[in-house]
């Protein structure tokens, strides 16, 4: 066999695309009556699935805890069969798990996709690049005449996600040992960020999520504040939100120029 034929066969056998009783197995790999070639290849096949499910478990600890050992393993096996790894880092295997759960939802727990998305986002934030942090003084230094045109540069580790149900509520219940009841339906915005080496998340109003995304798009402060326009006191609410962004360390720079 050529090297190409050997690797195609071995890959198919390990990934499960080919049956272990394929006639080519005995032709490619020597075996004995006591230890058949197919049994030897099966060692690799069994480790393959187990290794990827372990990697998923590490990235989605609360989802794994919620489902339990067997259900999570079944989910992992189905997912890996549908979405084999395409990245050298095994830690990235789960990047489509939330979408997979949306495509094949658990009829009783349609919120599991949201929990998976929150956990994947936390994983991304953990490994995201570091950013400097500036306080509200940086905004004050700009001067009142230019403040409407100010751009806020958000931390490179900050993420804003909008989920179908409140995964933060489910997370909180699981962390405190309460029954993990199904959260009420309705969109829920979540901010995920890192301070030092620790990852945090919190629910935010939809207007604030829109404002953060506007800032991420490089828009000026007057546009950033626009989502609060329908509030009873838009200026006060926008000010409160901006103050919290600085306090939480979400702002890495303030500039009066559009982003390059």
């Amino acid at each position, binding site marked *: *066999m050529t090297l190409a034929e050997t690797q195609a066969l071995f890959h198919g056998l390990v990934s499960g695309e080919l049956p272990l009783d394929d006639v080519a197995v005995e032709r490619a790999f020597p075996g004995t009556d006591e230890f058949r070639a197919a049994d030897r290849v099966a060692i690799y096949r069994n480790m393959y699935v187990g290794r990827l499910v372990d990697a998923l478990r590490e990235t989605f600890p609360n989802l794994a805890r919620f489902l339990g050992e067997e259900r999570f393993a079944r989910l992992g096996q189905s997912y890996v069969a549908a979405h*084999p790894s395409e990245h050298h880092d*095994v830690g990235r295997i789960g990047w489509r798990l939330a979408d997979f759960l949306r495509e094949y939802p658990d009829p009783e727990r349609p919120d599991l996709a949201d929990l998976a998305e929150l956990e994947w986002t936390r994983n991304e934030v953990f490994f995201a*690049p570091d950013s400097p942090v500036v306080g509200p003084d940086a905004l004050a230094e700009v001067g009142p005449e230019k403040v409407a045109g100010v751009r806020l540069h958000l931390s490179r580790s900050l993420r804003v996600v909008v989920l179908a149900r409140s995964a933060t509520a489910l997370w909180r219940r699981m962390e405190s040992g309460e029954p993990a009841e199904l959260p009420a339906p309705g969109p829920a915005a979540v901010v995920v960020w890192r301070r030092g080496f620790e990852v945090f998340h919190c629910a935010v109003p939809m207007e604030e999520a829109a404002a953060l995304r506007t800032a991420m798009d490089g828009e000026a402060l007057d546009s950033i504040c626009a989502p609060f326009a329908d509030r009873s006191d838009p200026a006060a609410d926008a000010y409160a939100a901006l103050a919290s962004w600085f306090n939480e360390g979400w702002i890495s720079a303030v500039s009066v120029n559009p982003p390059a």
Partner: protein
Amino acid sequence: MFQRLDLGHGIGLRTKHFARFLEQRPPVDWVEAVTENFMTDGGRPIAVLEKVRRDMPVVLHGVSLSIGSLDPLSETYLAALERLVARIEPAMVTDHLCWGSHRGQYLHDLLPLPYTEESLSHVASRVVAVQERLGRRILLENPSSYVAFRDSAMTEWEFLSELSRRTDCGILLDVNNVYVSARNFGFDPVDYLDGIDPARIGQFHLAGHSDKGRYLLDTHDEPVPSAVWDLYREALRRFGRLPSLVEWDDHIPSLDEVVAQSRRAAVIEAEELAPALRRAS
């Protein structure tokens, strides 16, 4: 030109022990970091590695270079490796004589190759490409294997020795892997040591394995067993003083226990090499 380094005795840097490494330098001479775990732009792992690097030499040990694959060498991977090497300035860059990707899919395993002239030419050309890209020599580790190939025309030690001579790469001799493969295929592990080119070996790996009855599984989840220590003694007698590394990747115990294994490697090295040194003086 491939050159041996005198690093002493090291252990693997594992997440479970990060806090201890940050508190104080543990009594080891160097650490090995699994390359892919630190190919990140930020976060705790790379920050810890940079701190540890200020304290002691670091060796980068990859598992996903996939040097034997027929897929093109991954530009994404090589660029990330290049950045990490520039950032950490490791004492060595190592990976495995194996393949793990096929048509863009990664199996995340260290799959053996048929030891043929076709494989040798293929792997050699890729080792040369990687070394040119990094501007340095790499070392390749012998894998633990559970299958052999009817097409193999040479032994693994012959393949590795010839690969090393053709490309000037080094050999990372995993003593546990030699033992595991020897048991799994019924050859004498000492034949492996006698057959491999002694001038090309740049590092030893030591680890534990699990006995599954019909075969040994390379699990790195327990102390180095006595049979592997015995084989390490044989390796020391043949190859002399080389950096050693104790690997422990699953059911990881306390840092003190891993360090104790590394200290044991140092004691065994002294026991085996002291008579030779006395004779030389």
